């Protein structure tokens, strides 16, 4: 994918902190990436690496009681969303940026009909009359392939299966044709066959509308099938970003490598699976240098200081945060 396109969304140096026992700790640190129209960026990493916090920070939904965006900008067509107050943010959410959540079973309001919940997005972002909003909501439900949508419009979430609820979520997120959609593990809670259907639906809708998508997942199989570019996160840092092909063919960061070799594959013995030894450092005790150093087989003395995210000489779109692998322009394998 080319870099010259105007990004739909650019995140620059985003740092989000949480207060734990009176002290602020960064959950994500200096996160930067951009996503262009009609492009899907996959944000990959294990649980707790900061993928969802990144998404919530973009949406301005970090809980205010104990969380804050400490630094960085979120640029939507040049406008910095972190500068907006709550009322202004309400006009952005659902209209310019939408989000799909992981848990379809709990993400819909149980006491409101699904038709109403889809309609509601339109109500606050468009000047449609009630009747028009209802018609448009019905069209959306049909579009995401809810069977007999007209008859089920006034049904409640508990009448629907997980897969169907996720379709309703997607209809809600798409209601105002947003430029960007954040999908936070939208298929993790679903059965495998339903997963495939929902992924196909998302890909189809993206192609149709030309929106940009940030797809958060820990499932590298999904990344291969849906993403154009990938950003790998580890302990709150982006440690590698590349096109899907480059990442799967030549992973540079030792963590990415380890991640790829920990996927079970049909053509290999389970004995060849390599779990990554050690664990992610806790948020309250992050090392000053490379956060993967403790688990890294390539560790050198220099890893005690934080490496920058640098482009490789051969492929400028492929960036890696590792002294060993990028120290000499990524020439040493």
């Amino acid at each position, binding site marked *: 994918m080319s870099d010259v396109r105007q990004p739909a969304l650019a995140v620059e140096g985003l740092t989000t902190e949480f207060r734990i026992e009176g002290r602020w700790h960064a959950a994500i640190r200096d996160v930067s990436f951009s996503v262009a129209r009609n492009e899907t960026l996959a944000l990959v990493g294990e649980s707790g690496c900061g993928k969802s916090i990144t998404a919530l920070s973009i949406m301005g*939904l970090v809980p205010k009681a104990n969380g804050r965006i400490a630094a960085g900008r979120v640029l939507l067509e040049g406008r910095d969303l972190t500068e907006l107050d709550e009322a202004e943010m*309400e006009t952005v959410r659902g209209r310019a940026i*939408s989000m799909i*959540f992981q848990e379809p079973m709990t*993400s*819909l*309001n149980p006491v*409101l009909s699904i038709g109403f919940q889809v309609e509601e997005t339109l109500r*606050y972002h468009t000047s449609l009359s009630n009747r028009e909003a209802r018609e448009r909501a019905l069209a959306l439900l049909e579009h995401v392939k809810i069977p007999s949508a007209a008859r089920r419009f006034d049904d409640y979430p508990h009448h629907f299966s997980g897969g169907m609820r996720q379709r309703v979520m997607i209809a809600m997120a798409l209601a105002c044709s947003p430029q960007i959609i954040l999908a936070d593990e939208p298929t993790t809670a679903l059965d495998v066959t339903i997963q495939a259907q929902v992924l196909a639906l998302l890909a189809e809708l993206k192609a149709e509308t030309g929106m940009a998508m940030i797809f958060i997942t820990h499932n590298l199989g999904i990344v291969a099938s849906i993403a154009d570019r990938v950003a790998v996160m580890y302990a709150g840092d982006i440690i590698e970003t590349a096109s899907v092909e480059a990442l799967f063919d030549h992973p540079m960061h030792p963590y990415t490598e380890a991640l790829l070799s920990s996927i079970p594959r049909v053509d290999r013995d389970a004995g060849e699976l390599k779990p990554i030894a050690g664990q992610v450092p806790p948020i309250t005790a992050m090392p000053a240098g490379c956060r993967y150093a403790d688990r890294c087989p390539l560790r050198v003395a220099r890893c005690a200081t934080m490496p920058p995210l640098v482009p490789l000489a051969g492929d400028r779109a492929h960036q890696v945060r590792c002294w060993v692998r990028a120290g000499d322009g990524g020439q040493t394998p």
Partner: protein
Amino acid sequence: MLTYIVKRLLVAVPTLLAVLTVVFFFVRIAPGDPAFIILGDQASQQAIAAVHQELGLDRPMLVQYLDFMSTVLRGDLGMSLVTHRPIWSEVANVLPYTIELTLTALVIGVVLGLPLGIAAARHRNEALDYAARVFSLLGLSFPAFVSAIMLLLAFAIELHWFPVISEARPGDPLSRVSALVLPAINLGLIMVAYVMRVARSSMLGVLGEDYIRTARSKGVPARVVIWRHALGNALIPVVTVVGLYLGVLIGNSVLTEIVFNRPGLGKLIVNSLNQRDYTMLEGLMVIYAFIIVIVNLLTDLTYGLIDPRVRQR
């Protein structure tokens, strides 16, 4: 919804029959022969037998029971032993006062308690939240008769804003209102404390739910998120407490009516106790049971109104 209503109504019927049965046997099991109460300790065997016959107490228990059930279900509660007037008309005289007091207290409780609880939840661990929690703790710890006496001392005796004896003069609607204020505040403030507490904790739970985040991610304004998305879900425990507390409220209204010297069911029940008006007590127990069954029915119907998942059951 209609099927749900019909189902609830059908469930209420056996409940009511069971309650009536308990009342009947409870009164029969209680020690003391009503004939002695009517005639005194020195009454002759003949006189007692005559009273037994008059009251139908000489008949077999089952016959008495069936007779009791059929008269009660026809709406006939019998005669007072003391005043010899129909119990129903005695009750009808004072019932409006108790209903007026209880409902006003209920309205005060919900109208103040609900927004207060919601505000406390939204501003958790801020000054407003602490103030609301201290207030609710005070409200819950004061027995109704203590707060009643304190209100009387302050507003009726010291400040003379309201009458000490809360009896309305006939044909003077304003006196009826001013007689209602202090007793209603007394019961209402306790209700505020209950409702506020439950609304706060239930709201706190709901505000952390995924669907609240979903609503916010759609750009739904904060006000609407609170009042439509959160409250719809937070209301069930509040309705439960209001329903349960209505029972407590009726109990508390007994004490409140006595302290404020106000007519009502509570005063009637205490007077009948003092005069050992045994048929009146039986009648009042039926009335109270009936009220509680109706309140429970209304609570159930409100659940159905709020939660579509309940309607389906």
